């Protein structure tokens, strides 16, 4: 056991999927030419004023309700003041003392299968900043303000995670949740979902927090894990060699796989937060909260619990199948078509289908193999028209050619042999051809049973019903 305990808290920034910005009417679409989606409000022109986007509020309330948090009946927008070229007004409008969401929790499943509850301190609305561009500009820096004013929800956890794995599990869970709620597209490459990790270590058993470092702006699950692992090792090594961790902001460099100092606490800005006088306090009526609550979808944990109860799945399988709303919907569409086979459906969706999609880098919602098509295949396994082994062959043909299972089975003559007489004839022929093996088997070499199974299958091109074959062989081989 390590002498050190890791303490991690995450601040996740999720861009809200509104069509327009949080305080202006400019579009939020990603990828437009620089500064084509920044209006005068986003540019911080003299005289302009912010007007709050009601849709961003609705999304934040959705999130708060989904994590069982309190929705503030009154929350306040504040200005966070600092100078930076991609921050046009010289301040970011955020929420400080009175956030819209406070005190929720998110459950994660640990590697041993146990569930751990991570507290969410708060979640607040704020505007994103623009971007500084360096590529292709020589010694100059370009500013793209398309992102300026994009709505964000910043989700702040309690420092309750104890390993990089837990942090990743938490981040994935939040990622799942925001997509379930349809409040964030979750696109990490485009920066729609990113996090800052606060990391510290302390002697195992201590109840004091160590000095933390904040690793800024990590935009992949893998980098979160690696950055935290690196940072934990760095801090332990530093302390063990007599040094002290300093409170600072660090950046993760994925190319070098290390974190490095960005600025120390002493260099940190004094943000001079104060309530934004251009915006009135945000008042939320109880009736509004109930309307939003009524519109919530079934959430991942509830769905997973239902899958366990309704379909008899393991908690693990239910967790995997509910990791995204699309995956869960696909699974349930398959089950609706083959209601007697929920486990078979789970195995195929998580197994062959997932592998095939993964190989081509596709998502479940790509429409590559419709749920009814997979269900058509599973129906033939269920009614014993084909064996599981043959089914894999049919699946590959379906994947390659797009034809339905029945057509492929018919065309390739893969229909399973369930006629006892036919299987018996095949067994007899194999026994006749292999007298030596038969003698050895009868002399006690039980392992040769498999040999006979293989020979019969070969003779029937794999079409013999495996269960029947087993039974018949057990009867015939002993003589």
């Amino acid at each position, binding site marked *: 056991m390590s002498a050190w305990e890791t303490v991690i808290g995450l601040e996740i920034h999720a861009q809200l999927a509104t069509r327009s910005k949080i305080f202006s009417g400019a579009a939020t679409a990603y990828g437009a030419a620089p500064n084509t989606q920044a209006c005068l409000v986003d540019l911080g*022109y*003299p*005289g*302009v004023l912010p007007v709050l986007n009601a849709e961003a509020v609705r999304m934040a309330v959705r999130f708060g309700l989904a994590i069982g948090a309190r929705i503030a009946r009154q929350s306040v927008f504040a200005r966070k*003041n600092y100078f930076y*070229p991609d921050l046009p007004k*010289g301040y970011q409008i955020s929420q400080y003392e009175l956030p819209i969401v406070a005190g929720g929790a998110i459950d994660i499943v640990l590697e041993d299968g146990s569930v751990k509850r991570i507290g969410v301190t708060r979640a607040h609305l704020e505007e994103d900043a623009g971007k500084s561009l360096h590529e292709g500009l020589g010694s100059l820096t370009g500013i793209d303000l398309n992102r300026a004013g994009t709505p964000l929800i910043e989700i702040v956890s309690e420092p309750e995670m104890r390993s990089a794995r837990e942090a990743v599990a938490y981040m994935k869970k939040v990622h799942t949740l925001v997509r379930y709620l349809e409040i964030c597209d979750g696109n990490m490459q485009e920066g729609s979902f990113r996090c800052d990790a606060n990391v510290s270590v302390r002697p195992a058993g201590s109840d004091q927090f160590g000095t933390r470092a904040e690793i800024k702006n990590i935009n992949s699950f893998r980098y979160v894990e690696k950055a935290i692992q690196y940072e934990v090792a760095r801090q332990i090594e530093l302390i063990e060699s007599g040094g002290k961790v300093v409170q600072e902001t660090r950046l993760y460099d994925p190319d070098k796989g290390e974190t490095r100092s960005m600025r120390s606490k002493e260099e940190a800005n004094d943000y001079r937060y104060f309530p934004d*006088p*251009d915006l*009135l306090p945000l008042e939320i009526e109880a009736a509004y909260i109930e309307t939003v609550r009524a519109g919530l979808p079934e959430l991942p944990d509830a769905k997973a619990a239902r899958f366990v109860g309704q379909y008899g799945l393991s908690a693990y399988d239910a967790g995997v199948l509910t990791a995204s709303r699309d995956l869960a919907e696909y699974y349930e569409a398959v089950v609706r078509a083959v209601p007697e086979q929920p486990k078979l459906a789970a195995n195929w969706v998580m197994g062959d289908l997932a592998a095939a999609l993964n190989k081509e880098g596709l998502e479940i919602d790509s429409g590559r193999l419709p749920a009814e098509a997979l269900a058509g295949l599973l129906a033939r396994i269920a009614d014993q028209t084909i064996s599981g082994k043959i089914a894999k062959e049919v699946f590959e043909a379906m994947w390659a050619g797009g034809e339905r299972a029945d057509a492929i089975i018919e065309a390739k003559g893969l229909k399973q042999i369930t006629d006892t007489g036919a299987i018996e004839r095949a067994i007899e022929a194999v026994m006749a051809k292999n007298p030596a093996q038969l003698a050895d088997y009868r002399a006690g070499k039980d392992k040769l049973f498999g040999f006979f199974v293989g020979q019969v299958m070969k003779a029937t091109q794999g079409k013999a019903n495996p269960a029947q074959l087993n039974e018949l062989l057990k009867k015939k081989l002993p003589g």
Partner: protein
Amino acid sequence: MIHRQTLTQLAADLRARKVSSVELVRAFLARIEASQPVLNAFVSVTAEQALAEAEAADRALAAGRGGALAGVPIGHKDLFCTAGVRTTCGSRMLENFVSPYDATVVARLKAAGAVVLGKLNMDEFAMGSSNETSYFGPVRNPWNTELVPGGSSGGSAAAVAARLLPAATATDTGGSIRQPAAFCGITGIKPTYGRVSRYGMIAFASSLDQGGVLAASAEDAARMLREMAGFDPRDSTSVDAPVPDYPAGLGEPLAGVRIGLVREFLDKGLDPEYERCVREALAVFERLGASLREVSLPNIPLSVPAYYVVAPAECSSNLARYDGVRFGHRCADARDLQDLYKRSRSEGFGAEVKRRIMTGTYVLSAGYYDAYYLKAQRVRRLIAGDFERAFGEVDLLMGPTTPTAAFALGAKTADPITMYLNDIYTISANLAGVPAMSVPCGFAAGLPVGLQIIGPHFAEQRLLHAAHRYQLETDWHRRIPERFA
């Protein structure tokens, strides 16, 4: 003489086709041109554009169309953004800034048919009480050009007082409409916070700034305000309440109206001659049937210190956008980002603006926020409470607008505190968000004196009624400085 007519009369004459807008515009432009070397009331004069607008107004009027102010010449304080015409805010920082859009106030007056003759000088970013902080030089008082016109709307006030314009827009953050109105002997109204949209009005202190009017009479101010006021979805702090028809029914009898004289305004700083004029004005109201009593608003003495925490705090943040990156003054040959910020801002802002940015930055800093900013906000609530209680007893509050009449140029520039104390009677209305006016009520040693009238939230009509009724009995508001008569 055209220029001695009120806006009300001019609007009627235009509609009756007794005079054309082009004639009016030419006459006022000539006065502006002649006065400019003396008064320096304008930062920009838009003669060509004004004539084109006047011709259009005349065509509309000839066709029986045109809004309530069709063809009437006006001017805008140079912090209202005007598309295509530079908006300087009295600062080097925005010396060459041309806004791509019209402020809501500008757009509404345009829609009412008003013709804009130019942009009016002001204290830099509306920070000042004498118009001496303008990058474009001080404005002079038409009554005595050795004196200041007051500030920050000094250009608007001087222009109306000298009848270079029948009326002008202005803004009031701590007295910037009322104090220059008093110093220049004209009528000014600062509406309730939220009554007039702040969209396109370059911000000094967002929670205190309010657009309003400087005019020759309450009736003229009512006509302007009717066009300017109203909810604006682009200003979250503007209030969605119907706008009364302010000019209609002006001059209702004052019988039964309860007036409170604010005891705290009669402090030792008040010039005795000034006080005499104010008391005479109050006697007129009594004669008209109003009752008068003294009322105490005990927290008013705290208003100046509270204001000089809140206003600089907001300004320090509001003015952060002037960084030389996207618009405004940019220093030459910046070495790096820090150098760009430092030199652009050092060169672009004047001393008073810098003083307030530094004060504001200080009071918001970690460790000082509670002691200054939060405490000032608490004082603000106390002052608002004082007004609320007072308006439980009386309908209107009255008192002097300023402690003294206009002072000499340069007299207070060395000591910011004496300058700040000039706003001692006006600031509380901004802190409480209530509407307030200044109305000419006499002369102290030959200089105009202002009577301040304050009402509860959204009682603009009550203020205008009272002021108009008073102006029917007196002629102080008709006095014009001899030189500009």
